[in-house]
Structures are given as structure tokens and as C-alpha cells.
């Protein structure tokens, strides 16, 4: 009965209620959507880290991670493999040889981590092979009599393996994509010139095109002129097991793009069969076991089970390997909650004001109700319910809109390409698919109800203080 009255009361002054409801709708939508974008970015980061970069559990010599000493190997993989695979929850296992070294081309050199792998096993643990840039080759699919290396896009740029070239074919592609003649004519100035860096190419484009053309066609031109020199080579050098400098020429098998500059710059994947003969190690020696498990949350438990079986090794789960990732996934929910609380606190002011208005406007009516025997508790709960309904209507509409917009944007993602460089340096992609867990909606609903209750207390107390005799006399 009181519920119904409260509900009907809200709609007595439609405009006033609608203003509050709309403000709550907008506040909740803004908050939830912003959280969904942040959450999407973090989810994608975690996903990429676990599927492409680190996987779930690492096992190595206890001192290995201190400085990647080539001599700190694990021996006899088959014996380890049987025990690991027998552990419940383990999905796939791969072994890696990891060596610190230098990658050189004719003009450039940079420090890298040379990772020796078995491509087939690697594919069962990591999805890195799926990130090969089309046209650059593959993840060791092609047999070759040369040594092969699989490297990141940023490293390829750094080593001048990727260049920018405008030739007739590029101009034709651009024309086919609808770039006007006036623009392609301007690009003819660079025909067959090899730009060795993205930056210098961009700079030159800036000089010939006006701002409008740059905005419209800039990224299209960059994509079209992006050129990979086939059969590119680089030299990998490092110190072998006996501290003797060694190295060999590697051909680029393929180039990957994981949208994380640090990873792309530092990792060079090569086949163990190519690497091991150079190192002075034997084929059954390697540095790290990488284990994929069925559920990322169960990694710590599986790690503990493995630790019992291999007391002499260092075994780490992903939370220990990347503490920043763990800290973020653990703390971010609290941050979301604080963010929503600040928004709701701002909304509360509007609700208090409206409810106060409701009470003062209905002085006579409330006096009458008390006079004919409605007890104080009922008056109090009526006001409180009105406030809760008001907040909930706005909240539910806001959450509904958020869900709809999240659904829409999640299909194609949102591209923050202006911030690509900065985001990728932190390991985040600039193409974000917003996502939110259903439990967040429950949290928000609870917070909305609490806001409704809290902001009705003051107005409801005001209503209680009314003296029925006095109230009846007011106009």
C-alpha cells in the first residue's frame, strides 16, 4: 500500500521528478560507461599478457631471473614434463632457452632477449603466432635452410627492417580507396624514396599535405606505404656458455604486433634447433618451463602443488611475474567503486533538494495524513521509498542505456588512435572494447539504493517534525 502511494507520489510533479531522474541517468551512464572503457582496456592488457607474453606459471633455476645467466639451465625436460602434465589443471607446457644478447643490422643495434622455442609446443601455450602482420611471413611455418627469427613490429622499425616507400602500386591502392587525385599527385614527389623511420615519413607528409588532408588520409597513406623488406636479415650476438662471444645471421620469419612496445622491442623468438648449436648447451638443456593452466585464477593453487614436487626450483605464478598486473586487477574494483561513490554523492545533493521540496510543498497533506491516523513510521518510510524509487528509476534507465551503448561499442571497439604511442608504451592497446561484469551492475544498484536512503533522511526527518495541527493550518 505504502509502496504504491510512494510510487504514485513521484509522478505528481512529472517535470521535477524527471529532472532528477535524468540527472541520475546521465550520472550513472557516464560513470558506468567510463568504468567499462577502463575495464575493457585492463581486461585486454591482462588477456594479452597472459595469452601472448607470459602465460600463467614459470619454472626456472632459483637464481636465473636475477641476471639470466646462460649456465643456469634445467636439464632433462622429459622427466619434468611427465610430472608437470600429471598435475591437475595444467593445459599445456613449453620450454624456452633465454639468452641476453644484441640484435644488429647494418646500421642499427639494440639489446634484446633471444628466446629459443619449439614452435609447435609454443603454439599450444601462447597465441602470439596469431598476431603475425599479414604479408610479413609466418610463425616459423616455412621451412628454410637459414636461421629464422620472429620479431616485433617496433623492433623491426628500430632496426630499419620496416620502411616506408611510396611507389606506383601504393598510389594505385590509395586511389582505389578513394583518395583524391590532388592528394596522390602531391605524394608523387616521394616516389621510390625509402623512408627509414615512421617519423621522418610523417614529417614529409606534413610538409606537402594540408591539415585537412592529413587528418582524412594520413593513416591510410601510412598503412599503404608501410613496407617490409623480404628476406631481411639481422645478426644476433651474445656470450655462449663459455663466455665466448658468438652469433649468427637470422632471417626474419615473420613480424608480430602485440600493441605493447616494451615486449615488441625486447623479444626475439628463434627456433631452439637454430639457437642451441650456437650456445654450447646440449639440446636437452633449457632455462624456463612455461605452463598454461585452465583458469587464470587457479594459477596460485597449481603453482603451490608444483612447488611441492619441485622443491629446488623457483616457481612463479603470473601475479608474481608481473606484480603490477596483479596489483591492478586486485585494486581496480575498489577504484571503480570510489569513482561511482563520488558521482552518486554529487547526485545526492539534487535528490535531497528535491525531496525537501516535496516535503515542504506537501506540508498540509502530510499534516492531514498524520491527523487522520497515519503513524510517523509510515510517513517516514513513504518519504524514504519515494526517494529510493526516484533514484532507482534513474539508475535502472542509466544502467540500461550503459548496457546498450557498451554492447554497441563492444562490437567494433573504440579507437583512441591519437594516444596510440603513449598507450602502447604502457602495454595498452589504443583500440578498446568496453566491457563490464554483471556484478558491477549489482554493486551500482546497491550504491544507488544507499544513496536514495541517505539523501531521504534529512527531508523525512523534516516531515516527522511537522505538528499536525500547525500543518493543517498552512496554505
Amino acid at each position, binding site marked *: 500500500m505504502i509502496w504504491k502511494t510512494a510510487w504514485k507520489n513521484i509522478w505528481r510533479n512529472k517535470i*521535477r521528478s524527471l*529532472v*532528477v531522474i*535524468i*540527472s541520475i541517468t*546521465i*550520472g550513472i551512464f*557516464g*560513470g558506468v560507461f*567510463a568504468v567499462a572503457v*577502463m575495464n575493457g582496456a585492463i581486461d585486454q592488457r591482462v588477456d594479452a599478457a597472459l595469452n601472448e607474453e607470459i602465460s600463467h606459471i614459470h619454472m626456472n633455476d632459483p637464481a636465473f631471473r*636475477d*641476471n*639470466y*645467466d*646462460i*649456465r643456469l639451465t634445467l636439464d632433462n625436460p622429459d622427466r619434468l614434463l611427465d610430472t608437470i602434465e600429471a598435475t591437475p589443471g595444467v593445459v599445456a607446457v613449453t620450454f624456452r632457452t633465454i639468452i*641476453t*644478447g*644484441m640484435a*644488429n643490422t*647494418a*646500421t*642499427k*643495434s*639494440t*639489446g634484446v632477449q633471444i628466446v629459443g622455442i619449439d614452435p609447435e609446443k609454443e603454439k599450444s601455450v601462447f597465441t602470439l603466432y596469431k598476431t603475425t602482420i599479414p604479408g610479413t611471413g609466418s610463425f616459423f611455418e616455412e621451412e628454410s635452410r637459414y636461421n629464422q627469427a620472429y620479431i616485433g613490429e617496433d623492433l623491426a622499425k628500430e632496426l*630499419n627492417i620496416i620502411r616506408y616507400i611510396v611507389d606506383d602500386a601504393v598510389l594505385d591502392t590509395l586511389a582505389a580507396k578513394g583518395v583524391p587525385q590532388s592528394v596522390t599527385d602531391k605524394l608523387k614527389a616521394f616516389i621510390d624514396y625509402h623512408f*627509414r*623511420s615512421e*617519423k*621522418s615519413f610523417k614529417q614529409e607528409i606534413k610538409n606537402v599535405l594540408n591539415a585537412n588532408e592529413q587528418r582524412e588520409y594520413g593513416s591510410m597513406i601510412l598503412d599503404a606505404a608501410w613496407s617490409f623488406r623480404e628476406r631481411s636479415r639481422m645478426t644476433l*650476438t*651474445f*656470450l655462449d656458455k663459455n*663466455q665466448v*662471444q658468438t652469433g649468427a645471421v637470422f632471417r626474419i620469419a615473420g613480424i608480430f604486433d602485440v600493441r605493447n612496445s616494451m615486449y615488441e622491442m625486447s623479444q626475439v623468438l628463434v627456433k631452439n634447433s637454430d639457437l642451441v648449436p650456437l650456445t654450447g648447451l646440449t639440446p636437452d638443456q633449457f632455462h624456463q618451463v612455461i605452463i598454461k593452466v585452465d583458469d587464470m585464477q587457479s594459477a596460485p593453487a597449481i603453482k603451490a602443488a608444483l612447488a611441492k614436487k619441485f622443491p629446488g626450483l623457483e616457481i612463479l605464478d603470473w601475479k608474481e611475474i608481473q*606484480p*603490477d598486473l596483479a*596489483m591492478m586487477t586486485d585494486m581496480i574494483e575498489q577504484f571503480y567503486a570510489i*569513482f561511482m561513490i*563520488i*558521482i552518486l*554523492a*554529487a*547526485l545526492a*545533493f*539534487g535528490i535531497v*533538494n*528535491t525531496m*525537501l*521540496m516535496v516535503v515542504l510543498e506537501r506540508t498540509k497533506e502530510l499534516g492531514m495524513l498524520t491527523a487522520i491516523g497515519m503513524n510517523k513510521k509510515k510517513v517516514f518510510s513513504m518519504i524514504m521509498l519515494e526517494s529510493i524509487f526516484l533514484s532507482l528509476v534513474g539508475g535502472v534507465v542509466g544502467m540500461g542505456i550503459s548496457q546498450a551503448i557498451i554492447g554497441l561499442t563492444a562490437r567494433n571497439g573504440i579507437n583512441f588512435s*591519437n*594516444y*596510440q*604511442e*603513449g*598507450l602502447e*608504451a*604502457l602495454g595498452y592497446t589504443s583500440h578498446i572494447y568496453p566491457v563490464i561484469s554483471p556484478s558491477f551492475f549489482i554493486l551500482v544498484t546497491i550504491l544507488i539504493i544507499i544513496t536514495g536512503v541517505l539523501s531521504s533522511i534529512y527531508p523525512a526527518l523534516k516531515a516527522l517534525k511537522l505538528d499536525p495541527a500547525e500543518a493543517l493550518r498552512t496554505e
Partner: protein
Amino acid sequence: MSNFIMAWRNLWRNRRRTFITSASVLFAVFFALFFRSLQLGSYDHMFKNAIESYTGYIQVQQKDYWDEKIVDNTFTYDSDLDQQLLADNNVEATIPRFESFALASNGPQTKGVLVMGVDPEKEQHLSKITDKMVKYRLTEESINRIKQDADVPQKVKELALLFKDNAYTNSSRLQLDLGISDKDAPLVMPAIETYSRFENGSINLREPGVLVGNKLAEYLKLGIGDTIVLIGQGYHASTAAGKYEIKGIVKIPLPDIDNKIVYLPLDICQELYNAPGNLTSLALAVHDNSDKAIEATINRIENVVSGEQRIIGWREMNEVMVSQMDADNKSGMIMIGILYLVIAFGVFGTVLMLTAERKREFGVLVAIGMQKKKLATIMTSEMLLIGLLGMLAGSLVATIVILYGVDHPIIFKGSMAKMFEDYGMEPKMVFMGINTYFLWQMFIVALMVLLSISYPVRKIFGMKVVNALRA
């Protein structure tokens, strides 16, 4: 004037409502200012760290060096250029550098490092290497001595264990990490300083020897007096290789640099890379580092350098960081935008109530001859006053907090500090003092009020007096 008095009196007819509406504006303004101050302050601090310990505000480089950082893209250092640059009012000093990449090793440990040839005296104008020398270190031995000291409180001993192997460039950070209050400091600190003192050396021109970053030293297991081997690519594809003694260990506040930096005396470094007399960059220390002054300086010295060289500003040298800050800054602005939007609706709600409540009053006023324009002005002043009240109060509270915060940055102690350091951040949050971002809040609040006022103003002008009187 009378309009204003009328508006002022009207405000206090419903005190409660005025207070609540103003309070909502206060809330938004306070939060907006507080967060902006922290956000802008931390950007500023990060940039200062990056610029002052590494790139500097302005550099002169060979024209292709920035795009392709190889030893071949260097230029000859001549005193003419130096004199001309120093002639500029804003240039405090020129700091010659030779930077390159090399593979460093100490026995079985190998790592790619950033080799930087510097003139230690001139670096005092910019990166101040001497201030970054490690002075204290909580080694196992020093922790044991701390443990045995009966005067040291138990809590400090526990924290010392948490910060095992940490290096410090000054005793105040050491004091904070160990959670020692200023009151206890004179009692305990001298002893702890003695236990954890780290004997460090320095480098000088013409004397072979290197300084290495603290993280790098840890990784390569290097101590003072050890030898480091550097192998790289020299001038015109020659091989650059050399063996140097570690003279000292520095701690750079940028983890990315700290784990790969090797400082060499400039001339020794040029020798290593077979490029005597050449520089990769000439960094400039400036008197005035405001954006405006930097830009003006760059414009002035453009003429000084030859066509073979170029001037490059800090923004371009820290492009990635600028882009990150930009993204973070925009997201902060969106959050504040949402907050203001919500508050704007609250203000609009108040306006709506005011109008509905006083419909009859408006009718009477107009009926007895008040101009609609005057009425609208009063109404507008009323709402502007509410906004102004909230904004002034919010700014006042925020100013007090921010001014206090500027002098007392939030510095984390103990285990909280450890968490920040593990994350690669300085355990410190810095506020930005009063600046143009204050003006923005005023502008937004004014805009918010003016938008919501358009409703009653339209109502007043469209009002039919007869209907209004009957309301």
C-alpha cells in the same frame, strides 16, 4: 544595484535550498580542483624528473640523429657554437654528451646498456650526477647491525628488512622508508646512517672509469672497483670495445634509465666509439623553463646552428610520455566533466523549483508594473549568486588544501612506499599550485548556471500575467 539587493534577499527566503544547491557546487568545484591539482602536479613532477635527469629542455643534435640514433649521426663540437649558444640570455650552460648503445658484461652477466659520455662538471647544471650518487644502502650486513642496536625500535628493524638492498641518495628518504619520525631522528638516524653508509667514488674527464645505475649494478652484480666490459658499434661501423673500472653507483629516479645507464667521461667515451671530438647531442640548461621561454629560446637559437644541426625541444624528446600524459589528462577531464554534468542537473532542478514555486509572485510583480526584463535579471543574479557562493567556498577549501599540499607533498612511508617503488614510481604525490585550471572551473560553473537559467528567463518572458496570478 537594487536588483542585486532583491536577488540577495530572495536567496535567503529559502535558506536551506540555497545552502544545499551551493553545497553541491562546492562539492564539484572542490573535487575538480583537488584532482586537477594532483594530476597536473604529478605530470609536472614526472616531466621535471625526466627532463632534469636525462634529456634537458633543449638539445642541439646532428639533423638525422633523433630519427636514427647511430654513432655516424654525430657532429663536431666546436667552441664557436658553444659561445654563440651561451650568448643567449636564457641559456645557462651547454652540456656536451655522447650517447650510444652497448652490450655490457661482467663475467657471465650480460645486458644491453645506454652508454653516456658526459662532462661531470658541466652535468651539474642539468642532471646533477653528484646528487644522485648512492650514499646509503641497506645491505644484509647493515641490516644485521641495525638489528643488534638496542636503541633502534622494533618497527624500524622490520621495515629495514622489507627494504633490504634498497639504495638511497639522501638520508631523508631512508628515514621515511624506515618510518622514523622527525622527533626520533636525531636519536636513531646517526647510528643507522653509519651502519648503511655506502662508500662511493666519482668520475673525471681524462680518467678511465664509469658510474653505473643502481638497478644495472644489481643486475650485473657489480660493485665499486669491479670491471665492466662494453662492446658496441663505433664510428663508421668500427667495433667499439673497452674495459672500465666501476668508480661509483648512481640512482636515477627513472627506473627505465636506472636499469641501463653507464656514465663515462666524455673524452673516454668518444675514444671508445672512435669518434674523438664528436657529440651526439649538446643539451642546454636554461634559466627560465616555462613553455613560453623555451619556445622563444628555441626560436632565437635556430639561427645559430648550421644546416647540419637541428634544435629539438623536450616535448619531442619525451614524445611517448607526452602522449601518455595527454591520454591520462583527457580521461581525468572526462571524469570531472561527468561530475559537473550531474551537478548542472542539480542546479537546474533548483531553478525549476524556484520558478514553479514563485509563479504567482512573478505574476503579481509584473501585474503591479515590474518590467519582465528586471525580473529576469533578478532571477539570473540569484542563480549566479548561488553558483558564485558555491564556487568561492569550493575554491577556498580547495586552495587551503592545495596550498598546504604544495609545501607538503604526500610522501608515502614504510610498506606503502615499497608498493610504489615496486611499481616503478616515486612514492610521492605532488600538487600543482594555483594556476589557470582554477579559471576553468569558474568558467564551467558560470556556463552551468547560465544554461539552467535560460529556462526561467524564457518562462518569465512568455508569462501570461492573468494565468500566473491564478496559479
